[in-house]
């Protein structure tokens, strides 16, 4: 098998499903586009005016797990914030669930790189905070937070305060806070960027398990090629600033993905090699 078998398509030119296509899990019922970004341009005006993004188009289907890779400063975080309704686009169109984005939406949960725990609230109260701000029913939220606490390995730390936790646990609690909202779309901006490699790998596995159970649509910003390949159905590679989507790579690795049956898979290595070459880090 050569790298030529990997389906690396230029943006806009959607190719045939390659040899590897049959292995993937995306062959299920046709899914609609949940996130649709069309010709988005983001200009930061002022004396040092520059374009952070130029002519960015992408679409993410329901229950798809898509990672966005790019060199630092390429605008990938800006792109996520535009989809989240936190930053306004200068040109172009962004549709989430077929509606134009005009601000933060209750369909979307955003996990940021920093843990965003409030230091004066316990872990449990922090995890409930989002549900309170979104005015979700209290009892269901409490039940959900209890379940997430267990799932995320935070049992026994409900009444601890964020400063008493390790960085990895804080980040897990942050993810729990967002998952408690049961968003249909999960946007993550380098959620594990500040963590050590070991914690990161563990959280990746956990994230996949949760995603497989709940099957949200996920858009993940990362600068780790390994992480992107391991987690995603598709990896989008962005150019340096002004950011554009250069490549759209389908990752046809079997699911459920566990480190033991993925990391030894030759195709996993080939994807990483291919993307590294594209990004010029090989």
């Amino acid at each position, binding site marked *: 098998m050569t790298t030529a078998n990997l389906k690396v398509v230029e943006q806009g030119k959607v190719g045939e499903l390659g040899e590897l296509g049959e292995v993937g899990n995306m062959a299920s019922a046709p899914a609609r586009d949940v996130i649709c970004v069309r010709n988005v341009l983001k200009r930061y005006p002022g004396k040092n005016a520059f374009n952070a993004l130029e002519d960015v188009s992408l679409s993410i289907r329901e229950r798809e797990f898509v990672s966005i890779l790019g060199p630092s400063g390429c605008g990938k975080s800006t792109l996520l914030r535009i989809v*989240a309704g*936190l930053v306004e686009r200068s040109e172009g169109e962004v549709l989430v669930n077929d509606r134009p984005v005009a601000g*933060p939406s*209750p369909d*979307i949960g*955003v996990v*940021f790189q*920093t*843990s*965003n*725990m*409030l*230091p*004066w609230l316990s872990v449990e109260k922090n995890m409930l*905070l*989002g549900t309170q*701000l*979104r005015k979700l029913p209290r009892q269901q939220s409490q039940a959900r937070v209890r379940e997430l606490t267990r799932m995320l390995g935070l049992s026994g730390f409900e009444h601890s*305060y*964020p*400063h008493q936790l390790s960085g990895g646990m*804080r980040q897990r609690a942050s993810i729990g806070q967002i998952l408690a*909202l049961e968003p249909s779309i999960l946007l993550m901006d380098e959620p594990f960027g500040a963590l050590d490699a070991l914690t990161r790998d563990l959280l990746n596995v956990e994230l996949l398990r949760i995603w497989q159970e709940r099957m949200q649509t996920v858009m993940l910003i990362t600068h780790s090629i390994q992480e992107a390949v391991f987690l995603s159905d598709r990896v989008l590679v962005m150019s340096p600033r002004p950011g554009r989507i250069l490549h759209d790579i389908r990752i046809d690795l079997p699911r459920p993905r566990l480190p033991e049956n993925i990391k030894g898979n030759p195709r996993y290595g080939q994807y990483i090699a291919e993307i590294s070459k594209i990004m010029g880090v090989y």
Partner: protein
Amino acid sequence: MKRWLETIVFWGAFALLWEYGVAALGIRRYLLPPLSAVLQAGWAEREMVVGDAWVTLCEVLIGFAAAVLGGVALGMLIHFSAFARRTLYPFITALQSMPKIALAPLMIVWFGYGFASKIAATFLFAFFPVVIATLGGLSGVAANLDEHFRALGASRWDSFWRLHVPAAMPSFIDGIKISMPLAVIGAIVGEFIGAEEGLGHLITLATANAKSDLMFAAILVITVMATLLYWVVEMASRVVWWRGKAV
């Protein structure tokens, strides 16, 4: 227990040094009377001392409360209104850079010899740190938390009460810790300029009558009062335990 012992030994040594050091060094009584003479003078005039202390305490507490409320209100106004930031903020800063002691006589002219002018002087001395601390606390809320709240669709009300107020508390506490001793200074200065009661008035009265021991008794009472008031603020500020616990 050991720490209590240290404290007692330290203050005991200080009292003994005062009591016997004065005589040993041959310092004249009208310059610095021995501690026992100060305590005796204070005890002899205890009704007046207690009465004056009560008056000063009321002035300090009411003036301080006004400074905290007014300071928070002004700080919030300047934080939330761009207009106030352009107009009121420079005005308050200019007012602050004036020596407030120079304004104290004006307070007497405006508000008379009674209670009101002392409250005004106390307020004037104590409010500015509260304004700055409130302002600093509110504008120092981490940008990532603000964005997080926005992403969670928080209302302005929720953002204010659940994020901005608790985040501003450590800075606010610093402000009132600075403000508390200033309030005591304000009340005493007000009483110096013109008053018929209060510990400041007692000091001027004792000085005029060459009663150094009574003057020192008044100073001692002020010191104890100011220390206790600061300690109360310090204790109250422990409610804000998350200072420095940013994650």
